[in-house]
């Protein structure tokens, strides 16, 4: 086995363990956990059994490995960007609601204090 595959397998194993640890610590969401576990496990499997990649390339009718990695990398980045946009919009709405609520509550308190003083 080539050294590069061993290195990749070790990196994938390390990252998978880290992802698992973060999930247990609840530092990442369950969706993020599955997304990244899929990436690390794929990396691990293809590093340990490189011939599987040749089979996969035949299935998708690609002849050069680099193309496959390039394409799957781009697709994965698109998916990440899409998920990030969704979560950004959700956070933005939550932030708007919170700032509005705080402003209105503060306003109500000021009104009550004014009434008290009057």
């Amino acid at each position: 086995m080539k050294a590069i595959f061993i290195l990749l397998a070790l990196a994938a194993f390390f990252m998978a363990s880290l992802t698992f640890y973060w999930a247990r610590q609840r530092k990442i969401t369950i969706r993020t956990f599955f997304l990244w576990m899929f990436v690390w496990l794929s990396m691990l499997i293809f590093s340990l059994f490189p011939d599987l990649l040749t089979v996969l390339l035949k299935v998708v009718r690609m002849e050069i490995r680099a193309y496959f990695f390039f394409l799957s990398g781009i697709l994965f980045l698109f998916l990440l960007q899409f998920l990030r946009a969704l979560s950004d919009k959700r956070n933005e709405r939550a932030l708007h609601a919170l700032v509005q609520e705080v402003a209105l509550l503060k306003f109500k308190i000021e009104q009550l204090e004014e009434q008290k003083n009057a």
Partner: protein
Amino acid sequence: MADICKNDIVITSEALNEAENIGLVFERVPKGYGVILVDDGSTDNTASIGRVYPFVKVISHAVNLGQGVAFVTGLKAAIDLGYRYMIHMDSDGQHKPEDIPRFEEALRAGGGDIVVGSRILGQMNKTTFLRRSFLPVLARIINGITKYEMSDPMCGFRGYDLDVIRMNLGMFANYHNPQYNAVEMFIRASRRGIRVKEIPVSVDERSSGSSYKGELRYGWNVMVSIIKTYLEGVDK
């Protein structure tokens, strides 16, 4: 405010760093009207200037969220305080406070749950060619979707019957782009059967400073908001 102002109608306005204009606007507000000023995260003394006037109540956003969100904050405050009517105007001096009684008159006369000021029916002083050309096109598009007959849907000078609006607050939630909320509001309002009436208003140039809206960006974002809201399909 309750002692010196009418207790069923209020004016709301949002401001971001409008210290130069806001005082001039408040000086011109006709007597008897209370104002809710939403300070949208200003870094100058906009809020302090607002507090100088006894008929003005100031609500402050901790951070800048944009005009659309600040408008909804003012709307919620007006509803919470139990007002029946709300008149919304810009704080940059473009809308003439002298027009406020005509909005009140139109709201009390009925026939429109939202009374929209029209610069086309009234007067639009010193506007750009781009904006003057774009507004009628935009009105046609929005009218086509909503079946309203508005000549100037983007005018921010509007009156609201809060008895109707409070039952339809959902249409102000989850804007696709809060900054360009007018188009989204009208499309959603039409789906809820809310009536719209227009009155002529005259609009001046800003007293000072510059607007935060670039012309082309504004047009583009408005069109995107129309498409997104139209595609919602169901009433939100």
